[in-house]
C-alpha cells in the first residue's frame, strides 16, 4: 500500500513538473490577454456573450491586429514602419472621395488603394535598402508626405460617402452561424490574413531571412540573402496590410483626416507587447495578433473604468514603455 501511494505521488509529481515545463514555454502575452479580457468581461456583461466577444470586440480589434502583423514583420527585420497610420487616413479619406456614393466604384477603389499601398511600400523599402536611410526617418518622412497628400487632395475637408458594399468589409456579418450567431466579415479577413502571414513568416524562407536580416544584416548579405528584395517585401506587406486595415476601419468609422493618427504607434506597441524585439531577430505572427487584442482589451478596460479619452494616449505610453522595459529585463536575465 505504501508503495502504491509512493508511485502515485511520484507519478503525480512528474506530471506536474512536465506540465510546469510546458507552461513556462507559453509566451506571457496569452495569459496577460486572458486576464485582462476576463476582467473586461466581468465589468461589462456584454462581453460575456458570443456576440459581444466575436461581433463586437474581435471585430473592432481586427484592423489593429492586421496592422500589428505587418509591423511585426518589419520590426523583426530590424526596421520600423511609421507610415501606416497615414496610409490608413489616406485609404479612408481617399476612398470616400473616389467612391462618392457610387457602389459600382467600390471594387475599383479598393484596387486603387491596394496599388497605392504597394507603391508606398516599395518606396519605403527601396529608400531603406538602396539609399541606406534609416527606416525611422524614411517612414516618418512618408508619414508626413502621405498626410500632406491627403490634405492636399481633400483640401482639408473630406467629402464623399461610403457605399454599403464598401462598408460591408468592416461592418458586415454572416448571420445565423451556429454557436457564434453573427460572425463578422472583418474577423474572417483577419483569420485569412493570419493564416497566410503565419505561413509566410514561419514556414517559408522569407521569415527565416527576415529574422536573419534583423539579427545580423552583414552576415545575411554574406550568406547570400537578397537583403534588398526581402526587406522591401516586408515594407510592401506592411503597407498593403495597412490598406486592408483602412478598408475595415472605413467600414464603421467616420471620415476625418485624423482617423489614422497614432495608429502606427499602436501597431508598434501591439507588436512589442506581443514579444517582438525592437532591434530585430525575433518575432511571431500569433503573438503579434494577441498583442493587438491585449491592447484593445486594455483600452476597453480603461473606458469601462471611466478614464477620459485623452488619457488613453497617456496610458498607451506607459504600457509601451513598460512592455519594452520588461522585455529588456528578461533578456538580460537570460544571459
Amino acid at each position, binding site marked *: 500500500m505504501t508503495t502504491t501511494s509512493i508511485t502515485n505521488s511520484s507519478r503525480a509529481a512528474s506530471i506536474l513538473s512536465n506540465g510546469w515545463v510546458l507552461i513556462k514555454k507559453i509566451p506571457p502575452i496569452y495569459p496577460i490577454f486572458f486576464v485582462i479580457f476576463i476582467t473586461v468581461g466581468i465589468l461589462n456583461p456584454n462581453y460575456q456573450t458570443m456576440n459581444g466577444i466575436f461581433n463586437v470586440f474581435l471585430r473592432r480589434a481586427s484592423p489593429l491586429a492586421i496592422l500589428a502583423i505587418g509591423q511585426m514583420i518589419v520590426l523583426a527585420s530590424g526596421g520600423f514602419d511609421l507610415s501606416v497610420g497615414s496610409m490608413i487616413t489616406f485609404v479612408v479619406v481617399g476612398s470616400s472621395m473616389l467612391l462618392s456614393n457610387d457602389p459600382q466604384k467600390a471594387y475599383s477603389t479598393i484596387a486603387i488603394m491596394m496599388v497605392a499601398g504597394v507603391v508606398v511600400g516599395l518606396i519605403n523599402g527601396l529608400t531603406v535598402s538602396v539609399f541606406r536611410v534609416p527606416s525611422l526617418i524614411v517612414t516618418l518622412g512618408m508619414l508626413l508626405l502621405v498626410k500632406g497628400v491627403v490634405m*492636399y487632395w481633400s483640401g482639408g475637408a473630406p467629402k464623399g460617402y461610403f457605399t454599403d458594399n464598401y462598408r460591408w468589409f468592416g461592418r458586415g456579418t454572416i448571420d445565423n452561424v451556429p454557436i457564434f450567431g453573427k460572425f463578422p466579415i472583418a474577423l474572417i479577413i483577419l483569420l485569412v490574413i493570419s493564416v497566410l502571414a503565419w505561413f509566410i513568416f514561419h514556414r517559408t524562407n522569407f521569415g527565416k531571412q527576415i529574422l536573419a536580416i534583423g539579427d545580423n544584416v552583414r552576415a545575411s548579405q554574406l550568406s547570400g540573402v537578397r537583403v534588398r528584395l526581402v526587406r522591401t517585401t516586408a515594407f510592401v506587406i506592411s503597407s498593403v496590410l495597412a490598406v486592408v486595415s483602412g478598408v475595415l476601419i472605413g467600414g464603421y468609422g467616420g471620415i476625418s483626416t485624423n482617423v489614422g493618427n497614432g495608429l502606427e504607434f499602436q501597431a508598434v506597441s501591439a507588436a512589442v507587447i506581443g514579444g517582438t524585439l525592437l532591434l530585430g531577430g525575433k518575432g511571431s505572427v500569433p503573438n503579434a495578433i494577441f498583442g493587438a487584442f491585449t491592447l484593445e482589451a486594455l483600452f476597453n478596460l480603461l473606458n469601462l473604468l471611466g478614464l477620459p479619452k485623452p488619457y488613453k494616449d497617456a496610458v498607451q505610453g506607459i504600457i509601451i514603455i513598460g512592455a519594452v522595459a520588461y522585455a529588456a529585463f528578461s533578456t538580460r536575465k537570460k544571459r
Partner: protein
Amino acid sequence: MTISAVPTSGVKQWLRSIRIPPVFYFLVIIFVGGAALDLIFADGQMVRNQTILTNIFVRSVALGIVAIGQTFVILGASIDLSVALVISITSVMTSYIMQGDPANVPLAILVVLAIGATTGLVNGLIITKLKVNAFIATLGTTLILRGILNATFTNFEGSVPRSFEYFGYEKIGPIPVSIIVLVAVTLVGWFILSRTKFGYQLYGTGGNVDVARLSGLRTDRVIIIAHIICSLTAVITGLFLVSRLRAGAPWVGTDGVYDLESVATTVIGGTALAGGKGGVWGTLGGVLIFGVIDTLFNQLGINPYMKNILRGAIIVLAVASYTIRSKRESA
C-alpha cells in the same frame, strides 16, 4: 575589428583638421538655386529684400534652438522624439500662466523650465535605468504628455503680455533678438561640446558606451544630462514661438514637425545617428537649409498642404544624400 589601414596623406589631413561640415556646401548650392528659382518664377525678392532675408534666419530660430538640443542627445547615441510635445506644453502653459500680465512672466518661465527639465530627466531615467530603447522611451513620454495636454487644454489659452513679445519681434540694432538668442545657444552648445569635460564625456559615451564605462565615465548621468539639455532647448523654442503667436495652443509643436525636423537637420549636419561624431555647427547649417527652402516655398506661393508633401520628401532625400555614401547597411 577591421579598420582599414589606408593612411591619409598630408593634404587630406590638413583639410580634415579644418572641418567645415559638408552641409554648408549644400547650403550655398541650395541658396543659389533657390534664388535662381525665385528670380525666374517669382519676384526675385528673396535676395534683394532684406526683410525676407532676415526672415530666413527668424524662421530658423525655432527649429534651430531645439535642433541644437537634439544634437546633444543624438551625439550620445540616443534620440528625443518628445520635443514637439514639450514645445506645445511650453507654449500653452506660458500663455496660461502669464494671462497677459507682465508680472507673471518670471513665474511662467520658471514653471516651463521646470517642466522641461523634468521631462528630460524622466526620458533619461527611462532610457538608462529601465534600459528602454530611446525611440520607444521618448515615444512613450510623447504619448503620456499628449494625453495629459489634451485632457487639460483643447484650444488657445491665455495670452502673452506685450513685453514678452520682445523675444519674438524686437531687434537690437538691425539684428532681431531671436537670432541673437539662436547664435548664443549655438555658441554655448559648441563650447560645451568641444571644450568641457561633459562634452568629451558625451562624445565618449555616444562613440562607444562600453569604452566609456571602462574609463570610469558615468554614462547614465551623461545621457540624462543630455536629455535634460534637449528638453530645455525645446522649452526655449516654445517660449520663442509663443512670443510670436501671442498665445499658446496644444498643436504648436506637432504642427511644426519639430521632432522629425530636429533629427533630420542634425543628421544632415553631419552628426551620426549612432552617436560619437558630429557637432552643432553642422546642425545649424541643416537648419538654415530648411529655412531657405521654407522661405522659397513662400516666395513661390506654394499651397501649404503641398508644402508638407515636399517637406517630407526633402527630409528623406536630404538624409539620403548623406547615407548613400555610407558603406554600411542601415536598419
